[in-house]
């Protein structure tokens, strides 16, 4: 790994974090921000920093990092450069859970209903995928994930179709777009333990992912327990990405793109991709969040939509590029 990669990424992240606290509808000077951080119970402007921008910053970093990390682990596990957390049904499961909360009015009853239901949805879909693919190999895992994901997607469409009033449908659509608007410390507290636990499990996969470069047979002969590896990767993804999706809605492409951006910089070693990919994920989400706040084209652009608009062309480039370079 290049000596300057991690310090460089951390510096960029720190810089963006500072910008994220200062920039927005109301601009602050660094002195205002420092004062607010020192005295959290100050005036209204200071509350904007401690109660609005700080939780938003924390969520952007946590969510981006877990998406980048999970993408890197899944690409290594499935040995497929097009893998990403959404592939295994985590995102659509979380969305379905959230939609149930919105649809049946739980969300109106208490604020955290949507993320809680989403978390349950994510964990359920990945458990189903894991149970059904228990005996098969990697391919069976991918296909089961896609199938479960499709079922959750069908449930989602059904909910939109049957929505009792246009407002419910609108609310569901808005949630699906993915956003960091109006997130509070409650959201941070709900997601953090799951994201940290998931991240820990995902980091444990690094040495096994390196060995998996040689294929499953050789990895096994080198002492890698494939069942344990799959369990770590899937459970980590379900907990981490499930919780992330639960508090922000669906954010695609971050998990797909981040590993690709760092892979050449760590000489393609799958285990070494994990940490820098997590940092790049955090940088992407944070930068996109700042951009959605600063670029105003009438109604505000949702974070998930903004990332998709940038990410989709990258995905297309990736497919074309891979077609050229892979045998």
């Amino acid at each position, binding site marked *: 790994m290049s000596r300057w990669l991690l310090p460089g990424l951390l510096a960029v992240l720190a810089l963006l974090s500072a910008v994220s606290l200062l920039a927005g509808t109301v601009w602050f000077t660094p002195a205002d921000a420092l004062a607010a951080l020192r005295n959290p119970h100050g005036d209204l402007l200071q509350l904007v920093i401690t109660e609005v921008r700080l939780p938003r910053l924390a969520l952007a970093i946590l969510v981006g990092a877990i998406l980048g990390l999970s993408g890197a682990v899944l690409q290594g596990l499935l*040995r497929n450069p097009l893998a990403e957390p959404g592939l295994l049904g985590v995102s659509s499961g979380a969305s379905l859970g959230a939609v149930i909360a919105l649809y049946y009015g739980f969300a109106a009853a208490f604020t955290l209903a949507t993320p809680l239901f989403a978390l349950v949805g994510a964990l359920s879909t990945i458990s189903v995928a894991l149970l059904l693919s228990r005996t098969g190999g990697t391919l069976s895992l991918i296909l089961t994930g896609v199938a479960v994901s499709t079922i959750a997607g069908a449930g989602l469409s059904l909910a939109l179709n049957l929505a009792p009033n246009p407002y419910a449908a609108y609310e569901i659509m808005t949630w699906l777009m993915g956003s960091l608007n109006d997130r509070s410390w409650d959201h941070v507290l709900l997601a953090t333990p799951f994201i940290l636990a998931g991240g820990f499990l995902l980091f*444990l996969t*690094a*040495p096994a992912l*390196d*060995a*998996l*470069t*040689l*294929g499953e*047979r*050789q990895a*096994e*002969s*080198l*002492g*890698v*327990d494939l069942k344990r590896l799959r369990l770590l990767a899937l459970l980590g993804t379900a907990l981490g990405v499930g919780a992330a999706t639960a508090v922000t809605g669906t954010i695609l492409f971050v998990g797909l793109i981040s590993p690709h951006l760092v*892979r050449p910089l760590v*000489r*393609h*070693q*799958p285990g070494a991709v994990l940490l820098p990919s997590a940092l790049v994920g955090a940088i992407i989400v944070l930068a996109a969040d700042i951009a959605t706040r600063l670029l105003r084209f009438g109604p505000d652009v949702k974070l998930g939509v903004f990332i998709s608009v940038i990410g989709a062309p990258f995905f297309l480039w990736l497919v074309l590029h891979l077609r050229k370079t892979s*045998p």
Partner: protein
Amino acid sequence: MKRLELIGVRAERAEKTVLDGMDATFHGGRLTVVIGPNGAGKSTLLDVAAGLLNPASGRVELDGADIGTLSLRQLAQRRAYLPQSPRVDWAISVERVVALGITARLPAFGGLPEAWKPKIDLALQRLDLLHLRERPATRLSGGELARVMLARATVADPEILIVDEPTAGLDPRHALDAGERLRALARAGCGVVVALHDLDLAARIADDVIAIKDGRIVAQGRADDILNEAVLREVYDVRARVSRDTDGLSIRFLP
């Protein structure tokens, strides 16, 4: 290792019996070639011997201890295994591929311990790979990749090396070269087990031969005693002519 023994092994794949009643012994410091027609169960035999496939009944013993009682990691520290047509999925360097051979001896976190670096250099040097060490492993020719894989398998000095068809897809020069290198490992004390289709190469490098057909052993023993017309005809169902000249044994199948 002194010996690796298969005792009354029956093995299944997809609920079909592939090996039945197999008793075989592999010795340290000797090179054993497993021969047999397609679908005879050679790869399954190698997988069972490598501890990668649990036998449905019977057991495999390494120096008298059941390998089922060893963890994957413990086993990986003692034996190396190379499947047929190995490949590398990411563009990691040749040196990294060779370093993967010591996965089972690495701590869970952190990089490569300094103490292993000379070992890796030695493995690279033994297989003439020093000039390729920084090359991405996805950009190697077939012969180079075969040498890299052999370096990977032998970097940690395994007690037993199990190789499935190492010469598949190699031209004669590289096939002979691979054979010579396996021979050298056996001379150095490693127990080498190789599945081979190339019988001329088998005759050149084997100390012992195990001939199997339909999941059962047809014959096993010293290479000179097994590679004869009667056994080959029984194993392959084709007439065979074995001739010996100054270059060694040569085997021809006749229609």
